[in-house]
């Protein structure tokens, strides 16, 4: 209970800090943000600049601006997109599905593949494979997923010219077409996650195999495969769970880039489009929404960690 309370207090503090920093973003633009947003054309009159300034609330004292902004956000009002006049929250909702699906699929692929690979890496230790495994896993960690994606497109175009792999179709309209389009970007995005989690699992396995309970199990005559999978693996999976939370941050950022490679209309397209149009309120709101999600996922993972590992609670 104490743990939950102190985590919640931390959470509120961090979210407050995140909101202040995100709020300050527009205010920290060098020069006149409003003039920059409107750009240089003949329609920009002092009247329009003044109107936009008051629309964003830049004509008020800064503390008041922040309170108004935060108050609106807490009521679910993220503001209005500068050019389309649509509520920002609606624009984000329209783009969130492809990104969320891509990130979830990549996480599932990465974590799913990491278990057998990590176990195999621990199993192969000291059997002459160590150099190859280390080189392979470092290569997996550092392969740029956007490049891997482009190479996949190149290879698939040669192998299966008829395959539709670019763009996006909603999963409920055409599940198979959806999978065909999402599986390759998800794989490209998942490889560094897989390498990272597999390495983590390997060292956790090696550590668990030296613990007393493993020695006891061996001493009482448990088969080596059972020792490996039941005793060592189950304990090695605990740190695995925590790092999934950190991975979410990589996923959200990586998805923005991989989406561009596979022409997926997700949050990446929304944010990059908004940057190109200097639609700063949209950029600001998207960053706030994504970061809040990331923070909440991490808190959930922490609590989950406490739930599965009794040592953390005490």
């Amino acid at each position: 209970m104490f743990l939950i309370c102190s985590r919640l207090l931390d959470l509120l503090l961090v979210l407050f800090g995140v909101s202040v920093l995100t709020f300050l973003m527009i205010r920290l633009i060098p020069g006149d943000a409003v003039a920059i947003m409107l750009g240089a054309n003949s329609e920009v009159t002092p009247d329009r600049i003044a109107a936009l300034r008051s629309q964003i609330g830049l004509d008020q004292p800064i503390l008041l601006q922040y309170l108004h902004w935060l108050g609106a956000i807490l009521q679910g009002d993220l503001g209005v997109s500068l050019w389309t006049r649509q509520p920002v929250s609606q624009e984000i909702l329209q783009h969130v599905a492809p990104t969320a699906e891509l990130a979830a699929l990549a996480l599932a692929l990465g974590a799913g593949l990491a278990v057998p690979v990590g176990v195999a890496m621990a199993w192969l230790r000291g059997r002459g494979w160590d150099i190859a495994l280390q080189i392979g896993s470092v290569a997996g960690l550092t392969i740029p997923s956007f490049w891997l994606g482009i190479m996949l497109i190149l290879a698939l175009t040669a192998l299966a010219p008829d395959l539709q792999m670019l763009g996006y179709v909603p999963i409920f309209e055409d599940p198979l077409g959806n999978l065909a389009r999402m599986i390759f970007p998800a794989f490209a995005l998942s490889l560094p996650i897989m390498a990272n989690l597999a390495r983590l699992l390997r060292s956790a396995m090696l550590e668990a195999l030296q613990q007393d309970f493993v020695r006891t199990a061996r001493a009482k005559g448990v088969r080596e495969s059972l020792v490996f999978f039941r005793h060592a693996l189950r304990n090695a999976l605990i740190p695995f769970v925590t790092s999934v939370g950190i991975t979410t941050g990589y996923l959200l950022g990586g998805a923005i880039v991989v989406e561009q490679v596979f022409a997926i209309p997700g949050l990446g397209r929304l944010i990059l489009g908004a940057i190109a149009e200097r639609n700063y309120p949209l950029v600001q709101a998207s960053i706030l929404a994504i970061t809040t999600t990331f923070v909440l996922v991490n808190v959930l993972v922490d609590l989950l960690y406490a739930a599965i590992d009794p040592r953390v609670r005490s």
Partner: protein
Amino acid sequence: MKRGGLLLTIAVLLVVILLALAAFAPQVAPYDPLAQSILTRMKGPSALHWLGTDQFGRDLLSRIIFGLRASLGISGSAVLIALALGGTLGLLAAYYRGWTERVVMRAMDILFAFPVMLLAIGIIAMLGPGAGPTSLAIAIVYTPIFARLIRAPALVVVETDYVMNARAIGATDLRILLRHILPNLASVVLVQTSLLLSTAILVEASLSFLGLGAQPPTPSLGGMLSDGRNFLMLSPWSAVFSGFAILILAFALNLLGDVLRDRLDPRLQ
């Protein structure tokens, strides 16, 4: 021991070669990376152009060598700033504890709460694209990472007997920090700088791939990959080689950090 030896040799050799290529780019590159030639557009590798040419007939090898230089320059300066800033904050937090630590680490927690790419994109969105803003953005994003990485081992060193002794004989805080604590963190700093420079290279490449990094015509690896993607079916060479260069650069630095960590911390073997 043998395994560490061989891998260390590979890693050091790769890093030295790449650093030398970047440092001596103007001397090493066979062509001017900006020189266009309409007659030799999008050619494959040949004796004249070892890696082929891009859509403007520019020599890919020369552009990649200059791209390495830009990539290492931008990420390297960013990581150095982050190390200086984050390292100092982490060190002060570990040394003074109490309110200093609470305020510093809370501030770092807040910066750390943003996904890396997202915060970097946000900062560049505000400052405008370019090499300078990219470097600054990466520096800001990496500062809390360094602060956390330095604080943890510093907490251990602060509690050691020799630091207590130094304090007892009346050494000043600055002297203790610089002469007694910092040297003992050298191996951590070395390993983490190498590993984080590797990831910073990938962040920089992602940003320039998105068109937010160094602007054309300056050759950047991410920018070349993005260009190459547009001509993928006509001529894949630009995309293949520029991305491979990013991989090799990030790989070499990561392997170096990884091997050094194994060597310096035998428990992880």
